[in-house]
């Protein structure tokens, strides 16, 4: 039980080590930056405009929300092929509830302020139930997740069809539509306030973690490194909001808004879109999922089970119930994605979420989630979703043929995993 290797004096630490930056994360951010810059050059500066960045973020939200849940599923060595179909079923249920069931059957009347919230709650309940049912089949009955969710892919897609009799359902409730992206933004002032609160919260969390470490006499990084990290965080958050705030609402849209209120628009009036509510929802989900993954027993057990299911079981962890919980979380996230996706379209259509399962899995995998289990991060999956979406919309802007776009995305997926494997071999993680 000797360990002579680490008994030698500490080697000189590089800047990245001192700052304790995750090099894989750095690599992904780098890849994302390269994609953005290349498209920006090809499109002659069209890609990195506030407008396109705004669109990119709202296009990413739906897949990114589900990708955070897919991380837990894949970390525990399962897979979920049914997320696109669960999304469709939840969307169908919420559409029917808000346009027919609540206003007509229950007699609340259209436009009742309760309608969107009750519809969302029912949608979440449906997602949670479907997910828990899948988890029960996998965890307690021992059917492989691949089979259960392959079945689910077919079942829920067509349950959605029956709920709506194959019809497109809309228009949806106006409040509900604010979750769609462009239809619901905070505006410049509130966006700045949210940004300031976010910076305050992250910096506070950073320093409280440092205090906790010091209280237990653990090594911490130097104060300047901590300050630098706080500075970078603040810069990223404020920078992102500044870009979104730079995207002004077109004057015709503003004019119509003033007309609707029976006013005339003052000369030279402008307003920015600011932070979309859907993006705010994604950030909130990302924070909650990251806390679950890194700071709670549930997350610890998810990763332990992924690393060694037998060890987890022998440690007294109820791995069957854990499987139910994981698929239930996935189902809830599908429902939240359904809110965003249908609100973005402003109606429910039959093909909503089609092929999303593949985008979601690809996002998680590009984001560094290992299919062999035990490894993966929430922020990685979101970044993976963002990289895929930038590739796709970038190619669309450049005018690449649709079939070729899919070829590129497919190649990138395989390459990303290869790079990840090579990286892990080098760092000895594999």
């Amino acid at each position: 039980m000797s360990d002579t290797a680490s008994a030698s004096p500490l080697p000189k630490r590089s800047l990245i080590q001192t700052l304790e930056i995750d090099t894989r994360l750095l690599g992904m951010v780098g890849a994302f930056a390269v994609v953005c810059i290349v498209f920006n050059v090809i499109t002659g500066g069209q890609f990195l405009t506030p407008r396109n960045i705004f669109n990119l973020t709202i296009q990413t939200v739906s897949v990114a929300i589900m990708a955070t849940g897919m991380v837990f599923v894949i970390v525990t060595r399962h897979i979920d092929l049914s997320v696109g179909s669960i999304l469709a079923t939840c969307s169908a249920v919420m559409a029917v509830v808000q346009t027919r069931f609540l206003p007509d059957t229950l007699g609340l009347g259209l436009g009742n302020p309760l309608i969107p919230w009750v519809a969302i709650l029912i949608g979440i309940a449906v997602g949670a139930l479907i997910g828990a049912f899948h988890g029960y089949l996998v965890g307690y009955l021992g059917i492989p997740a691949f089979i259960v969710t392959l079945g689910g892919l077919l079942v829920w897609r067509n349950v959605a069809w029956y709920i709506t009799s194959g019809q497109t359902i809309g228009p949806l409730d106006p409040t509900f539509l604010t979750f769609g992206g462009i239809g619901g933004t905070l505006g410049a002032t509130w966006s700045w306030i949210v940004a300031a609160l976010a910076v305050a919260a992250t910096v506070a969390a950073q320093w409280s973690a440092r205090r906790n470490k010091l209280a237990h006499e653990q090594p911490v990084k130097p104060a300047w490194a901590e300050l630098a990290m706080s500075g970078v965080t603040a810069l990223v958050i404020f920078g992102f909001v500044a870009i979104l705030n730079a995207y002004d609402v077109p004057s015709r849209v503003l004019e119509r808004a003033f007309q609707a209120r029976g006013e005339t628009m003052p000369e030279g009036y402008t307003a920015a879109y600011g932070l979309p509510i859907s993006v705010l929802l994604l950030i909130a989900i990302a924070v909650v999922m990251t806390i679950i993954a890194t700071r709670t027993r549930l997350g610890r057990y998810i990763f332990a089970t992924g690393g060694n299911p037998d060890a987890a079981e022998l440690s007294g962890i109820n791995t069957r119930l854990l499987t139910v919980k994981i698929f239930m979380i996935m189902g809830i996230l599908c429902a939240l994605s359904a809110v965003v996706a249908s609100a973005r379209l402003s109606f429910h259509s039959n093909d909503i979420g089609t092929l999303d399962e593949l985008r979601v899995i690809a996002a998680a995998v590009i984001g560094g989630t290992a299919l062999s289990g035990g490894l993966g991060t929430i922020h990685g999956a979101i970044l993976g979703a963002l990289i895929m979406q930038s590739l796709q919309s970038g190619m669309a802007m450049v005018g690449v043929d649709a079939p070729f776009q899919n070829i590129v995305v497919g190649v990138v997926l395989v390459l990303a995993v290869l790079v990840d494997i090579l990286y892990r071999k080098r760092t000895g993680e594999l």
Partner: protein
Amino acid sequence: MTPLVEMKDISIAFGGVQAVDHVSIDLHAGEVVGLLGHNGAGKSTLIKCLSGAYKADSGEIRINGKPVTIASPRDAREQNIETIYQTLALADNLDAPANLFLGREIVTGTGMLNDAKMEAETRKIMARLNPNFRKLKAPVKALSGGQRQSVAIARAVYFNAKILIMDEPTAALGVHETQMVCDLIMELKAQGLGIFLISHDTRQMMSLCDRVSVMKNGQLVATVRVEDVTEDDILGMIIMGKKPAVAA
């Protein structure tokens, strides 16, 4: 004196195979009892009934004279029974503190994991068990066999085990590391723990154990005090199932 552990008339079958066939063994505080036998003799299966990994078909387990039901690893832990498995049962992707506290994490007032505290506690216990252990932040798959073993042992020691089950604790270790584990077994015994030890190394068992129980084909051949028998007697029991004259 009441034995710390009594396993009485334990039987367990898998399909048609009688893996353990009416076996009774016991263990006193401050005693090391060895379980010997060929692969498939049933010693691991028997001991897993005590650690909660399997449930016996019939028979009785008593702890300090009181009958108990052990249906899961959690039940075993509640009886202060800790097990160090042959496979070590570590989650390779997690670090040493996470493994040490797996299933029994220290949480803060708000129910969040207190990683800093768990790391500090791990550092303390490691200072006692393996002073060279420093890689507290690395996933345990990056550790050597001996270091991994000390994580597994620390897990048992930290939670004040009264009954310790060690299944082939030195199988994967080098000479120096094996000696450290042997020293530790003697130290824990001196502290009053009862230890069940499973091993194939007859000579090591002769030096570490007070008594050995030999199994063959799921049945108990005999339990003997090591000072009453020679190594050849024990080999005879293992290979031929031959009961030596001294066996009661």
